[in-house]
């Protein structure tokens, strides 16, 4: 019974951080299940995939209610992300995992560096400009971009968004930029999900925030919505191959659900800068974990 309770406790923590950071929680679960509980890696990944779905749908329900999720943008990006997840599952058998893990870790470290540079006090004007696209308006209407009267395509109109930020007590309006870059990144996010049993939010959130210029809270919520759909693409495969063990998956899913509820409540009261630093720490931790596994 202590194993059962320990598993639930780890799942609650993973769910809370997953919801806070727009991740599925798999980044925490897979190492915990293999290193602490000594479970076989295939079962850890199969359990993690189920947990990713549980985290996503439970946290998304709250984010969608709060109006933070950009559903249309998530659906557009998910076309190639889901395809990437299937490709990732197929690639996993033919490519060297150590090579992929090393490259992946370097990308994560670069992203952590970029986010840390932008988030530190006294960041340069160039770094702070990265957040300028997220225009904060006191009015309830979605206003034109602060960058001027640039022509907007119907796609730009459809994928713009706004949400009420209770911390700032204002409506935050923004335009999603560089949809093509987001689609390309979605492919890599999907591949990562299929290969490693994670949701891929670790790629989606920084790309939506740094390149597509979504506010971090909108990027986190939209990623949360997307990762569940991405994970389902490979979850069916893991279930069919017998790597989803209900006695592991059920307590973990229930624990992750409880943690995700806690995480979304906390997220609405945490300032963006705090979220940024938590995310940087997670990126460095994940990169170190991947490098360690590929080089040892």
């Amino acid at each position, binding site marked *: 019974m202590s194993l059962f309770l320990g598993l639930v406790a780890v799942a609650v923590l993973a769910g809370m951080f997953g919801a806070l950071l727009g991740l599925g929680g798999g980044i925490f679960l897979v190492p915990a299940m293999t290193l602490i509980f000594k479970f076989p890696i295939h079962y850890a990944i199969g359990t993690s995939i189920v947990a990713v779905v549980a985290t996503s749908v439970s946290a*998304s329900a709250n984010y969608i*209610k709060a109006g933070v999720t950009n559903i249309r943008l998530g659906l557009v990006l998910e076309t190639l992300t889901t395809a990437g997840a299937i490709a990732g599952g197929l690639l996993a058998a033919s490519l060297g995992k150590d090579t992929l893990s090393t490259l992946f870790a370097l990308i994560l470290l670069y992203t952590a560096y970029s986010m840390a540079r932008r988030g530190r006090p006294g960041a340069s004007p160039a770094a702070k400009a990265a957040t300028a696209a997220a225009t904060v308006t006191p009015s309830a209407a979605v206003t034109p971009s602060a960058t001027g009267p640039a022509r907007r395509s119907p796609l730009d109109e459809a994928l713009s968004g706004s949400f009420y930020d209770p911390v700032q007590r204002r409506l935050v309006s923004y335009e999603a930029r560089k949809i093509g870059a987001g689609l390309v990144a979605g492919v890599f996010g999907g591949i990562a999900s299929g290969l490693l049993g994670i949701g891929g939010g670790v790629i989606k959130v920084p790309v939506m925030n740094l390149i597509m210029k979504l506010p971090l809270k909108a990027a986190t919520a939209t990623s949360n919505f997307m990762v569940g759909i991405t*994970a389902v693409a490979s979850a069916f495969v893991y*279930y069919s191959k017998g790597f989803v063990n209900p006695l592991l998956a059920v307590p973990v899913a229930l624990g992750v659900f409880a943690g995700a509820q806690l995480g979304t409540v906390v997220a609405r009261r945490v300032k963006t800068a705090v979220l940024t630093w938590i995310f940087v720490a997670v990126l460095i931790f994940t990169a170190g974990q991947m490098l360690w596994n590929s080089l040892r």
Partner: protein
Amino acid sequence: MSESKKATSDAGQSAPALPALNRAIRGAFRAGVLASFAFMLVGLVLHFAEGNGFQPFSLGKAVPWTDLPAALAGGQPLAILSAGVVLLLITPVAGLVAAAIVLAGQKESAMAAVTVAVLAILATSVALAR
């Protein structure tokens, strides 16, 4: 986005009312989570009530899709647990179906087509998994 009805916030600012698309997806997600977790909790209680310990690698093999209806009819705890997992996995799919219906109803044909495309890709993964 098309709905402009506002709700008053505690700060005196106004926050948009929840659009139909958000309501539909959230409803599908909540229904899916509630149904799957009900199965999971009942399955766990029955599993331990039958005197089974927590031995996932000797007792926890998932019931295959094809055998699930018959196993459920027999009231097997492992089948109930497996059904809970399967219900959870199809919840995001239900959200997509709800989104496609709402978008089609709102005459957003491009976004409805995008949603159907995602569903088609997911169907491909199910086909590959068989």
